[in-house]
């Protein structure tokens, strides 16, 4: 009797196997058909239709990785991140090394303000496996991470990521320019200038790179270099107000710096006298702007010093007493620092004097 049962089991098993093959083949075919339609709609950014089609495909193969991933992407396209997230988390459980899944999860975490999660997923994406263009995808993921870090004012971490990125960047001028921009945002002007220069090596007339290099050089206090870059940049893009303003300031700095080389003694004395007058006006304007508020003790003291030194601050007196140049410019720098602290950032000649003060303070 048991033998007969065993034979029956074999017969029924065989029959059900045939039935199962037909059933599964049909389901696979239906799933593939719906999936293909969904991919077309996803590429055409018809997210609603794509979602319906991917859901239909999932009816026939609920655990299919590609179906779920595409559905998640379509859901993200419609900003239904909560739902997309659940699919992505499931996929992540199955393949935690998938780059795209990690990147999408990182983006969702950014939207939700979950910084730690975002960083974890971004790092996973950077070191994850990508099906195509692995290096490019990893680099893009890192760039996106840096953007995110800068948006959260985590400059030190962003700078570290940028340095890591720079090492694997190659000679692509566009990428170098982008990295330069990011270094500029992290206030790492040295690396920024380096990246722009690499970009300019390949594209000498790249206006954006020239502007970036000019701005980086300006921030580094390398005004002659900044002037060269900014002049070329403004020639490429005359309408850029920021570059024009920076160029103007650069030129003022270069013109108003009495300590620069290759100028005559007479010219230096003239610059010092003009700078002294400019600083005095700035001090008066600042005190007046404070209105009823009493001037600070430092301002009063600076005013007294300025008034005391003013009669001696002539070109003739400077010729007789060369030490007065140093003393006069020290007072000018002190006035500019004090007034910028109490009355806000200066513009024009005062800004130039402040920058010169910083330049010489550093040196």
């Amino acid at each position: 009797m048991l033998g007969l049962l065993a034979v029956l089991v074999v017969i029924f098993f065989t029959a059900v196997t045939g039935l199962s093959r037909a059933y599964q083949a049909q389901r696979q075919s239906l799933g593939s058909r719906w999936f293909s339609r969904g991919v077309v709609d996803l590429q055409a950014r018809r997210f609603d239709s794509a979602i319906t089609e991917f859901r239909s495909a999932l009816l026939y193969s609920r655990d299919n990785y590609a179906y779920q991933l595409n559905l998640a992407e379509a859901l993200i396209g419609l900003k239904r991140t909560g739902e997309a997230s659940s699919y992505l988390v499931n996929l992540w459980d199955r393949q935690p090394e998938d780059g795209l899944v990690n990147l999408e999860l990182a983006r969702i975490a950014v939207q939700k303000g979950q910084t730690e999660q975002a960083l974890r997923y971004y790092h996973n994406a950077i070191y994850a496996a990508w099906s195509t263009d692995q290096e490019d995808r990893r680099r893009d993921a890192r760039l996106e991470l840096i953007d995110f870090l800068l948006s959260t004012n985590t400059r030190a971490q962003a700078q570290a990521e940028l340095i890591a990125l720079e090492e694997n960047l190659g000679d692509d001028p566009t990428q170098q320019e982008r990295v330069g921009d990011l270094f500029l945002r992290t206030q790492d002007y040295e690396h920024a200038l380096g990246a722009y220069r690499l970009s300019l090596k390949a594209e000498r007339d790249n206006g954006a790179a020239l502007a970036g290099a000019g701005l980086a050089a300006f921030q580094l206090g390398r005004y002659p270099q900044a002037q060269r870059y900014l002049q070329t940049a403004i020639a490429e893009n005359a309408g850029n107000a920021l570059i024009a303003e920076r160029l103007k300031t650069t030129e003022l700095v270069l013109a108003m710096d009495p300590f620069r080389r290759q100028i005559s003694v007479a010219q230096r004395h003239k610059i010092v006298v003009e700078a002294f007058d400019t600083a005095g006006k700035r001090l008066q304007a600042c005190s007046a702007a404070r209105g009823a508020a009493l001037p600070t003790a430092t301002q009063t003291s600076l005013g007294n010093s300025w008034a005391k030194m003013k009669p001696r601050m002539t070109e003739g007196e400077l010729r007789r007493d060369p030490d007065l140049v140093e003393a006069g410019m020290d007072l000018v720098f002190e006035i500019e620092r004090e007034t910028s602290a109490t009355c806000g950032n200066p513009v024009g000649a005062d800004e130039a004097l402040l920058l010169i003060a910083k330049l010489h303070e550093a040196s």
Partner: protein
Amino acid sequence: MRSSYFAQDDKLSKKEDSLNLQNNSLAGVGVENGSSVAVKTANGRSPKAMLQSVFREDRFFLVLSVFIGVFSGLAVVCFRFAIGWCRLYLLGSGVVLSRSRLLLAPTLAGLVIAALVIHFFPRTRGSGVNQTKAALFIYNGHIPVRTAIGKFITAALAIGSGQSLGPEDPSLQIGATLASVLGRQMRLSRDRMRLIAPVGAAAGLAAAFNAPISAVLFVIEEVIGRWTAGILGSVVLSAVSSVVVMRWFLGSESLFRIPVVQLQKPSELIAYSVLGVVGGVASVMFSMGIATLRPRCKALPLWTQYFQPALAGLLIGIIAMLGAPQIMGAGYEAMDEAMHGRFTWQFLALLAGLKIVATLLSFVSGTPGGMFAPTLFVGAMLGAAVGGAEHALLPHLNVSPGTYALVGMGVLFAGFLRAPMTSVFMVLEVSGNYSIIVPVIVANTFAYVISRGLQPIAIFDLLTRQDGLELPSMEEQREEGVLHVEDAMRPVNVPVLDGQETVDAALAEAETSAADNLLVRLNPDGWGCVTRLELRALAAEEQGGSSLSSLASSSLASDSTSIGPIPVLHPDHPLEMALRYVDRWPVVPVVSRADFRQLEGVITERDVLERYREFGEG
């Protein structure tokens, strides 16, 4: 041939049991140590007897259970294919269904189902759980093969066309029917035949659910109603083998993608308690809907039964057309989506309500199909809705709707189907995550207690009574009080003699006592009982100088005396055990488990009967 073989074997087995009982009775331990006697009797047999012993019916039953599991698994796989094809050809292949199909498919299928049920398969109405219980308790395990065929066809058509019913209970009934057919072909004894339907039921349910533990528990909890070693092995074997077959063909993926289970803060248990309360109330509404509507639909003229499933299908189609197609069919895809945050909590709550309505319509119309999947659907939607509402009220809590949906499934299982143990293990087995156990137990307890309080009769008992049957209520059995010996015993009110005493001394003491019976503490251990008349008879036979112990051990006493040894009871023994002895011995000693010589009390037949009478009077 087979029949006579098993009959002979049955006799042998009964003889062994008899010896076993006698031996244990004398040792005063009831039937607790039976195996040693069985080994002794087997050792003395011939090789033929040994061979017969190896292929005894209980062992054959285990082998047969595996075959039952395999056949049930194959049947359930085919059933799933049939539902899939019906769904595909009746409703279409996509998730967005055309309006005409939404209305026509369930309506027209309803007409066909009604005709099939009325004319060909009248026993296929309903879910199938009660029919399996009826086979166990009324029909000696007999279920006609036509039932399985009918259930297969009509349930596949119903579920595939969008009626709000599930495939699990029909699978259970198909498995039970196959088991019954196999049992009949094998000419099993009546005892085994009775048990074979639950074995098949477990196999069918396990394959449908892809959850063998839950299936075994459900069958034990709701169909058989008691744990016995004899049946447990068979049920487990059949369930496991059916699941293996099912996974062979359909893969091991669970019914839905399991979300990441999170219980972040213990304070979330409050929210789970709320879910338990909501689930309990929903369960009561669901049960009361069936209790009210089903008899009324059955009472309608016969001709209306041709149209009831069609009308239910039409109304379900209209609900689907108005924006809730998720309620059609078993609804596992919608449960999956709810677990993964697709719907707003308001829509989830609406879906739960609409599913209750749709399932009521399908079920009370007599359409064959199961209640498991709709129960899980309602639970998942309610759970996710409560989770979503909590997130809306307390946005800082990172609530996972999937976890709430999973817990919600258990809640409705506990509240509506009243299977509390299965409900907990079902969620654990489906989720594969033990960190969910605390929320599940908390929520299920609330749901079960509320449901039990507001709806005293469990749904399966309700359906049984509506069908005019009187099957044992598993819930009542579970909650039934058990009387123990200590509830009936009385303080020692008879003289207790020492075994060293002589008959003359004992008679002297007996003559001064009002009691007719005396207990004797025998040496080195054990107890005996003797009456005053027996002592007088012994003295008349010139045995007055003999000690009571020597008379008990050497059986020198005449035929009219029976000094001992007699069985003893312990206070924690069930009272029914006392019934085995009190009719043979006028007084039975109740002794301490720590010291058999220490008397805790005595019990007589009258004590037992009086206690039962008091218990019966409430």
